[in-house]
């Protein structure tokens, strides 16, 4: 438990300060420290881990448990450059399979870490509109993203003296509420009316800000669609210390809207998070950002510095009595950390396993304190709600789904990208916004890997929370992934099952074992003599995982598979 006992001096001979409280206060530095070692050396050796453990008073076994939880932290020797290449459904549908074949031909099999460079397959990297993507970990330098990516480009970067990112700009529709503004500096942000909402909020009573959010009818954009006002009010009513957490761990396959928002307009997110802090009475905010988003991370980090320098973060914001600061925490390759309680554990320096709810985050969240968790897109709506009033926001969209929604359109469409529309548009409308289907439509995955495949009449269901729910589908994070008739759906559905098996944290039995049994059954189903038996098995798994998994990951891991069976994409008698 002693801090740095290896570096004793005679001053330590007769007194030492340590203890559990001191150790617990340092535990949250574990993941950032592992990140530091990983990004300097390319992996975390036993010696490095022991040193970290000693300095942070975490047991080595626990630190190892944390390190091995994340895909981006290696505990075995790895080369200084490792390419994580997306082989997930969006890129597969868009034809990235041939790029992967090319890479294998030229670099050999994935996951061979003996040489000076290596590559590995990656779940969705959140670059779906590009059609192919690679995230390259660069020891001793900055991680870079290549999207779209060719085998040639990936290999070039793996060998480059100073790797540079190569990301094509995201096609963005102009003149919308959330998109279309690329703020280059805080002044630029201000010239677009930035910080006005924060200044206005600071003149209001915190409870009045909460009232506006409640009146706006804003519902969470991360997938669960929970009414924001209820959360804000609940946290506001609790005693401090309290936290605001911005969930920017966007990892749902097919989802990339939050990345675009952070890359294009980071100041607004900072402003919104600060308003949230003021409204609920928090002293600190965390933005937990996906590890594979180095671009967004950099923009947001720089922006926070700039905002802090200008006195809009830190003590006595804009001369008010309100003090608040924001710290960025970087994820490390674990989809589950997008689940809010797993995210807390990750920040706190524990394995990113979800917690059983209740208690809910509003009662006992980060560090066991009342915590407001909102998704990036949800928060981005806040400045407008403060400036225009909740009622104005509520007038957009439908009664139960207010405001506009970002849709992440990818796959076989002519114009993949992020699109914004007031709630009420259907899947078909969204596809039309994106220029229509490239080829003949087979099916659309709505809501991400945790969402459903839809086809036929379902394409006309308005993508509002209420209509989607009534139709048995989910708006989720706004994924609209299009598959034309050229796509063999069995491997796509299997890839979703593989995704959940890979991302299951392993805590609860239904999800830990259920995800692998589902994956295995889908493979057997392709050639099974007795399809009914496999289908019955899949149905049994569906029920137990939905009913009894500890968190949303397991509860939703069968939904897409079941919908694919329902609409006949897989499992039908040939």
């Amino acid at each position, binding site marked *: 438990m002693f801090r740095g006992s290896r570096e*004793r001096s*005679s001053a330590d001979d*007769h*007194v030492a*300060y*340590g*203890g559990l409280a001191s150790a617990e206060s340092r535990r949250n530095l574990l993941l950032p420290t592992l990140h530091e070692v990983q990004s300097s050396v390319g992996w975390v050796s036993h010696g490095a881990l022991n040193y970290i453990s000693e300095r942070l008073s975490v047991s080595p076994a626990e630190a190892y448990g944390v390190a091995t939880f994340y895909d981006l932290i290696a505990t075995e020797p790895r080369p200084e450059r490792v390419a994580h290449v997306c082989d997930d459904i969006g890129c597969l549908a868009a034809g990235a399979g041939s790029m992967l074949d090319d890479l294998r031909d030229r670099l050999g099999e994935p996951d061979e870490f003996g040489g000076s460079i290596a590559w590995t397959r990656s779940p969705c990297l959140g670059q779906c509109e590009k059609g192919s993507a690679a995230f390259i970990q660069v020891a001793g330098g900055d991680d870079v993203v290549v999207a779209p990516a060719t085998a040639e480009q990936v290999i070039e970067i793996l060998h480059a003296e100073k790797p540079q990112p190569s990301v094509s700009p995201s096609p963005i529709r102009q003149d919308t509420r959330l998109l279309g503004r690329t703020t280059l500096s805080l002044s630029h942000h201000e010239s677009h009316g930035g910080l006005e909402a924060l200044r206005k909020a600071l003149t209001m009573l915190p409870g009045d800000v909460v009232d506006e959010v409640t009146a706006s009818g804003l519902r969470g954009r991360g997938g669960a669609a929970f009414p924001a006002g209820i959360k804000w009010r609940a946290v506001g009513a609790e005693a401090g210390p309290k936290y605001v957490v911005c969930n920017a761990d966007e990892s749902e396959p097919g989802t990339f809207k939050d990345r675009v928002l952070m890359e294009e307009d980071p100041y607004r997110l900072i402003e919104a998070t600060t308003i949230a802090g003021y409204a609920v009475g928090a002293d600190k905010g965390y933005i937990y950002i996906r590890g594979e988003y180095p671009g967004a991370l950099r923009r947001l980090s720089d922006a926070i510095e700039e905002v802090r320098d200008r006195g809009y973060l830190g003590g006595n914001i804009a001369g008010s009595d309100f003090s608040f600061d924001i710290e960025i925490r970087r994820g490390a390759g674990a989809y589950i950390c997008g689940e809010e309680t797993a995210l807390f554990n990750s920040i706190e320096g524990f394995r990113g396993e979800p917690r059983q709810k209740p208690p809910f985050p509003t009662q006992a969240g980060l560090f066991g304190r009342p915590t407001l968790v909102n998704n990036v897109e949800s928060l981005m709506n806040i400045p407008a709600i403060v400036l225009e009033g909740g009622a104005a926001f509520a007038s957009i969209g439908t009664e139960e789904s207010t405001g506009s929604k970002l849709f992440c359109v990818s796959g076989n469409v002519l114009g993949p990208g992020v699109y914004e529309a007031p709630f009420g548009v259907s899947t078909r409308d969204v596809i039309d916004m994106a220029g229509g289907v490239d080829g003949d439509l087979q099916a659309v995955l709505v809501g991400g890997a945790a969402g459903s495949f839809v086809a036929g009449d379902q394409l006309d269901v308005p993508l509002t929370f209420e209509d989607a729910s009534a139709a048995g589908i989910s708006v989720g994070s706004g994924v609209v992934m299009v598959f034309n008739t050229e796509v063999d759906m069995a491997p796509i559905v299997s890839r979703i099952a593989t995704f959940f098996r890979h991302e299951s944290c392993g805590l609860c039995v239904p999800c830990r074992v259920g995800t692998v049994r589902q994956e295995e059954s889908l493979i057997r189903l392709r050639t099974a003599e007795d399809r009914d038996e496999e289908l019955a098995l899949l149905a049994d798994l569906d029920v137990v995982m939905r009913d009894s998994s500890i968190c949303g990951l397991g509860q939703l891991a069968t939904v897409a598979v079941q919908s694919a069976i329902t609409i006949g994409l897989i499992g039908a008698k040939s």
Partner: protein
Amino acid sequence: MFGAGGGTSSYEEIETTDLIILWGSNARSAHPIFFHHLLKGVRNGAKMYAVDPRRTESAQWADTWLGIDVGSDIALANAVAREIINAGLANTEFIEHSTSGFDDFAEFVEPYTLERAEEISGVPASAIRALAHDYATAETAQLCWTLGITEHHNATDNVVALINLALLTGHVGRYGSGLVPIRGQNNVQGGGDMGALPNKLPGFQNVADDELRGKFEKAYGMTIPSEPGWHVTQMFDAMERAELSAMYVIGENPAQSEADSGRTIELLEGLDHLVVQDIFLTKTAAMADVVFPAASGWAESEGTFTSSERRVQRVRRALDPPGSAKDDLAILFEFANAMGHEWGTADAEDVWDELRSLSPMHAGMSYERLEAMGGIQWPCPDIGHPGTKFLHAWLWEDPMPREPAPFSLVEWVPPVDPLDEDYPIRLTTGRRLDAYNTGVQSSGYRSPIYAGAVIDMTPEQAADLGASEGDVVRITSRRGSVEAPVRFTNGLRRGLVFMAIHSPDDLDVNTLTLDAWDPKSGTAEFKATAVRIETT
């Protein structure tokens, strides 16, 4: 101090107390399950101080470790008392109501300034001050100690100095506040309770009290000497004076466990007659004229043990002892019968019931109740009594049913074995987690964490000596000399080394220790030996 000798609190109290002071105790290793209770307290938010020359596995859990020099406890305790008084933090209401001699005490500790305590103990004044203030202002506090307090030539004074602190702050006699000595052996408490003390009859009844002694004489049909007997250290002195010529040793191994083992062995050899009753042919047994092969007390015998929280619990026979070995009670009965008495056949419950009829604090503890309740904490005066979680609640009663508790004036004196140019290094001894006392019982299994018969020191100390880890060094005290390999640890400092007591056959630490002992308790100063260390 308060009459019956026992820890005042229950283990459960440390789980919810506000402040824990662990003084001269490495409970993490020596009393691991007590430490589980302590850790629950820490996890429930208790602040923790450790006062110990070594930064032990226990001290690592403390918010603040006070690394005192060996034998400076009284100076530190008196300075804590002075600081509490001078800062106006003493519990004046409690002092007035429940104690006596405060004014003299306040005057007595006045010279023990924080600065002086720092000079004597090495601990920064600021840390001593913080401990004083935290102890005085805590709502509830547990002050725990073990052999780091009692294995000194002035053991009783050490204990008294700590008791003074509890009297000063009122941290005794309430749930959550108490004085907690954790016993080193399974039944030290029970042995004392049963009258295995030179001046006490069972139930801490004074042997000099005619009425109490008369009660026992009547029950036993014997005359009992009114003079206190000798404790073990006095017995060896008596041997030296040729006043003691025969000895019956039951379950002890003094040839290896006593300080200055050279002298001990010489004295044992000089006895006319030595009888040893043990489960092993120990080094002492090997010297005996007669050996009674005994059964182990905890697995091959019936009876009771009493724990450090005064909990009397049943011991049961799980195994038949090997060969002709018999349990202690059976041997004593046969011994008595052979000497012409008619004790009949041994039965543990009969003996216990006789004890209950004579010792009021055990009266309510039938075997049936001990079984049903998972043990009972004394005092338990009648068959309907639930036992007593904490002692000395009377201190808070109004009016006080007994004489107030007196403050005691105890001066700090340095350890008997001084450091000088020839013997510049302080050796202290203790236990390790996986071993016990002289290793007779604990050497039977193959511990994967066995440290070996080593001497622990810091790398800096070793560098001063020109030794590397693993090098064998010679350790010499004013009484003897041993060799041991060096093991590095960060829990010590220059001038302080540590050896465990568990492997006397490989490394007889008590060749080095001295037999200066506390005249009041009879414990020897195992904790403070002056040595020099040389490479070999």
